[in-house]
């Protein structure tokens, strides 16, 4: 037995890393190289995107072109404009609700909780949302988009945070209450700081969804406010017609950078945050 595993171990020790790298190169390397190589070509060479290296690199020129033609700066700030308030909003409102839902018992609480988390599963009514926003005078506005995103992702926050609140010992709240703190104070001083790990996970997930969302944005703010995915859709819709693959891929590289850099910097925390929520 030991002799067998001793004989097999060295081969596996060498074979496994090679297999891992080969799989990554084939499955990830090919598409990513296609993006970089094509983004470095001029229009003629990029007409039929292939894996050959550009005869001359035009990466920076292409970046400069899409940066102005794709209105990237305004798209970047547009994306931030809808994402930041949505995320802050769902975190604050969601944790307020989750604290109560996690602490109170009874049928009413259970019913509200069930309604509150139903949005995790149920798809938003994307067409009638537009109608409602028109009636409210919010169609095509950032505020309308923020409301829609909050309505979509509050469920996620309520679900994650309610589960977490139940693991927080009551004594921590009691101690503050004995000192005369009201519910608002207890929530801000005691509960919110304790929720940090679970809020970090929720922030990552929701940022990922909103930053990359194009479907709901097309309905609510398409053509009114620039966001990075919306402008990619425009660049690509015009670009495919004009066969501008080099510009499409240059745009993709630039728009992916903010999230990629964030991910690279905080990857360990992001990965552990996401997995901790899924497998209990």
């Amino acid at each position, binding site marked *: 037995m030991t002799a067998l595993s001793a004989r097999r171990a060295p081969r596996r020790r060498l074979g496994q*890393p090679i297999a891992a*790298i080969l*799989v990554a190169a084939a499955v*990830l390397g*090919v*598409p*990513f190289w*296609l*993006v970089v190589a094509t983004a470095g070509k001029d229009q003629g060479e990029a007409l*039929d*995107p*292939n*894996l050959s290296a550009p005869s001359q690199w035009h990466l920076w020129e292409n970046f400069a072109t899409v940066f102005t033609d794709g209105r990237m700066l305004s798209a970047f700030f547009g994306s931030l404009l809808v994402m930041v308030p949505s995320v802050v*909003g769902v975190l604050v*409102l969601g944790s*307020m*609700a989750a*604290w*109560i839902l996690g602490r*109170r018992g009874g049928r009413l609480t259970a019913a509200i909780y069930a*309604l*509150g988390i139903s949005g995790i*599963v*149920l*798809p*938003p*009514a*994307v*067409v*009638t949302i*537009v*109608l*409602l926003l028109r009636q409210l005078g919010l169609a095509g506005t950032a505020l309308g988009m923020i409301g829609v995103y*909050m*309505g*979509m992702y*509050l469920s996620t926050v309520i679900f994650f945070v309610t589960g977490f609140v139940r693991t927080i010992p009551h004594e921590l709240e009691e101690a503050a*209450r004995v000192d005369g703190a009201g*519910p608002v104070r207890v*929530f801000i001083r005691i509960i919110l700081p304790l929720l940090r790990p679970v809020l970090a996970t929720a922030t990552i997930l929701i940022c*990922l969804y909103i*930053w*990359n969302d*194009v*479907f709901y944005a*097309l*309905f609510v703010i398409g053509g009114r406010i620039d966001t990075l*995915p919306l402008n*990619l*859709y425009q660049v*690509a819709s015009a670009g495919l017609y004009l066969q501008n693959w080099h510009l*499409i891929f240059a745009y*993709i590289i630039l*728009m992916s950078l903010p999230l*990629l850099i964030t991910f*690279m910097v905080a990857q360990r925390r992001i*990965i552990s945050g996401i*997995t901790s929520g899924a*497998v*209990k």
Partner: protein
Amino acid sequence: MSSNALGVPRSRHRDHPLWFLIPALAVLVVFFFVPTLFNFVYAFTDWSSFKSAINFAGTDNFTSLFSNGTLLNSLKVTLVYAVLVALFQNLFGLGLALLLERDTAVNRAVRVAFFIPVVMSALAVGYIFQALLKPDGALNGILGWLTGTEVAIPWLGSTTWTIVVVAIVHAWKWMGLSMLIYLAGLKTINEDVLEAARLDGASRWTMFRAIRFPLLAPAVTFNVATALLGSMNGFDIVQATTEGGPGGTTELLNIFIFRTFGQGLFAQATTMSLVLFLMVAILAFPVIRYLRKREDVL
């Protein structure tokens, strides 16, 4: 309130006032529940961009969508797509998790690399694969180089197989997430159990089939449920690769909704949105319950 004498529940209610729920509920009602209710109303009207008045139209939208075949086609495509994505995403994710299970420097780096597509925009992923899968594109180039002949497979032009190809692209984008969940699941398995099986002479395959895979049930639940839900609501990848073509064979409900909305046929789009809502509501809960039950048996 018989327990008031103890003072606990009363004070607890005062300590956790219901008004804390109001802001969240207000947002949910206005931006989630009211539009959903509207779905049930406006699906039965003739709301469109061509006239200003909205009139009741009975089940006209349903009958016209049903009789011209789009309703059943979109439903079928969405379901097939969801099942294929769930299948591929879990196969790829589990395969990667098993390949990269040991905590070595190489494995850690490769895991991070496989998470990059998860972070990227799905629309961008779709465009990348549109270029890769063109008849004269890179994939056929590689296949031609490997086989030594000219290969010109129209990956995105087949009325039968394109839906499978697009589902694989969807699975490619999300397999890093499934991999992470499976890796976390594998880590929770007790080393002693595996060691005992090893001493009993179990082969690697037997150990996987009889011990490790069953113990991964919670991870399977999460991965299958998220893959099904994500792909039933899919839009970006299909829009960027095929736009629902060829011949409507990849036209998901959301693609149809977006297209008809763009044509100003709001009531028809609403009808399909309602169909999607009902489909998810009818399917999601039994699927989740079934997967949960599988966990309990173990």
